[in-house]
């Protein structure tokens, strides 16, 4: 599976499910970059077949609408959509 890793400060396990053409997903990537945190991301639209289905199911566990960006923190909670304040506060507390 094509999981990308962006290195930075360890703030727990941060996993971003994104779409490569989505402007709001790009905003999350930029925000995480500017906060210099360590995170992983998958551009779900670039996956195919089984892999795509598998990841879609995973996203739906956190966000039943399967919308993007879905940002999962520490396998515990998620922020769905680009909500700068919420992402900032969750990362600080994480």
């Amino acid at each position, binding site marked *: 599976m094509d999981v990308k890793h962006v290195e930075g400060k360890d703030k727990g396990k941060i996993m971003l499910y994104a779409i*490569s053409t*989505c*402007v709001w997903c790009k905003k999350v990537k930029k925000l995480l970059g500017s906060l210099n945190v360590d995170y992983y991301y998958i551009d779900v639209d670039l996956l195919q077949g089984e892999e795509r289905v598998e990841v879609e199911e995973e996203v739906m566990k956190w966000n039943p*609408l*399967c919308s993007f960006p879905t940002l999962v923190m520490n396998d515990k909670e998620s922020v769905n959509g680009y909500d700068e304040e919420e992402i900032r506060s969750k990362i600080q507390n994480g």
Partner: protein
Amino acid sequence: MDEMNILQEKVDKLYKRLDEEAESSGYHLNPDEEFTIELVEGLLVNEKRYGYWACPCRLASTIKEKDLDIICPCDYRDPDLSEYDTCYCGLYVSSAVVNGEKKVNKIPERRPTKTEREKLEKKSENITAGITKLSKPVWRCKVCGYLCARDAPPEVCPICKAKKERFEKFL
């Protein structure tokens, strides 16, 4: 000319076209040009990838028939403009946003889930059966609500420019 320049030219051309079409029918593109251009680029990427303008901010199934509702302009644009002053991805905005009275923020996804969509499809098949007394069928544009009574829907919606396949038999 290298590939990047060609893409840039295509993006600019489409951006201008969409802007003109929007303004001529009472819609507005997002005035944040950098943001909007990125979305237009996404549309072109999806055109190349899937053969249709899937919303750049939604996960396309890659099967056109299943994604008709999210082909830009999507079926959800107008209700989202009314309720939130922006469409889901932010390509189209209300005049309040253009005038600087409102800001574009993330909005909830209006598109039903895959399971709900499958249920709705079955339901609408049942409803349209049974109305037969009209001299012509009435077609409704699922994007903007335009109605017309004729044998078949028009090639392109005269109001919002959505293509023929976006029409449903209304009556």
